């Protein structure tokens, strides 16, 4: 059966729709462009980025009537079920969502806001040792990565967050993290940001 002739724009849109629905992780505009390149779609490859952008915008509008929406997160675009339907999803997926310990969340917060940061620096702020298990969980989940060693005695490893972290928490970039409460708000005039950020 010969492929029925299709408008390039509509073909691009359908291709992107299929790709986003089948991909395990969000796909970025760049990934989409490179997946569409050198295909039989009749479009100048220089124009592909704009075409992809237009298709995404059009898909976004299309799903207004659907139970899912197109969202942009750290590593790209994904379709997700609108949160008002979460109650149905919960009925289907019976497993209880995993809860994360405060130790893990606090460590993650320090890494997210203060990256690059060493384990020692995290421990200094939290006042307790960071367990190996906590670090490993963060690395395993792919939320945190090693950024290289710091030029200090002992050559400690520095850590930072990943795009998987952004994806997981539906953030487009680190800028979208909730703003840190100003330390001065808790009251001290003697406190200034330098003291806080310039540790070690």
């Amino acid at each position, binding site marked *: 059966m010969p492929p029925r002739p299709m408008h390039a724009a509509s073909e691009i849109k359908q291709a992107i729709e299929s790709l986003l629905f089948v991909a395990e992780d969000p796909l970025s505009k760049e990934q989409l462009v490179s997946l569409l390149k050198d295909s039989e779609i009749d479009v100048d490859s220089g124009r592909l980025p704009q075409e992809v952008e237009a298709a995404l915008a059009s898909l976004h509008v299309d799903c207004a009537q659907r139970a899912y929406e197109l969202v942009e997160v750290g590593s790209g675009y994904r*379709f997700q079920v609108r949160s008002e339907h979460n109650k149905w999803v919960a009925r289907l997926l019976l497993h209880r969502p995993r809860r994360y310990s405060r130790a893990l969340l606090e460590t993650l917060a320090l890494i997210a806001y203060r990256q690059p940061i060493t384990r020692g620096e995290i421990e200094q702020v939290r006042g307790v040792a960071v367990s190996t298990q906590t670090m*490993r969980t963060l690395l395993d989940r792919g939320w945190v990565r090693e950024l290289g060693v710091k030029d200090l005695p002992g050559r400690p490893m520095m850590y930072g967050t990943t795009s998987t972290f952004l994806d997981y*928490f*539906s*953030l487009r970039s680190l800028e979208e993290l909730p703003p840190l409460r100003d330390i001065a708000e*808790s009251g001290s005039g003697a406190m200034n940001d330098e003291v*806080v950020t310039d540790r070690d």
Partner: protein
Amino acid sequence: MAEVEDTRKEEPVDSVGPSEGTYKLPDDLYIPPDALIVILEAFEGPLDLLLYLIKRRNLDILDIPVAEVTDQYMAYIDLMTSLRVELAGDYLVMAATLAELKSRMLLPRPSEDEDEEDPRAELVRRLMEYEVFQHAAEQIDELPRLERDVFPAALLRPDHLTHLEPPRVELRELLAAFAEVLERVKLRKPHAVETESLSVRERMTQLLDRLASTGGYVPFSDLFSRSEHRQGAVVTLLALLELLRDGLVNVVQHGFHQPIYVAHASSQS
């Protein structure tokens, strides 16, 4: 092996602890009983504990009454010791810091010296900084999260396409993966393995029955029977912690001075 011995020594709870009669749970304790559950379960270290003590009493973080806070802190350390909860060394370091601070605060300060720094300044700075990140962690926890709040919409793949070039795996990768699983299993074992006894299991069942029959939120303090004394209270507490960890009960408190309520997890959703 070591754990088995521990369990045996655990039996006479009342004989453990610095001095008989210093602690009577839940009535007489310096830290009110309804705070106990919070304390036992959730402190993330000495700074966390200190912040809790300060906030609970609505104290000014910039003008901490060191003597008072130190006494409460020590009471907590003693309590943990008496319950045979192993404390991280950081708690003891902080205890020493507080003791030193307390003694320095007792010394008259040379008022003519303007530059003299308040001996509490460093501690205050650390507390405030930690508080900022505590808050940040709470906010991160509330972000919409995959697997909990966000569910990607996916299409099943055409079956014949799943066979494309399967990835290669090495045995050591497989072993590493398994080691992780085992490690996680170990961590999810009750932290109270040593203290978990039949009586705790039994109490868990009793508590669940009671919460289920009540069908709503029960004040935390009502779960303790005055007639049971200390050991009974500890058993109830451990049972509640177990239930909480397993997600079988929910605990709510609407603020620092508010009473704590407990409910069967299934009674709400």
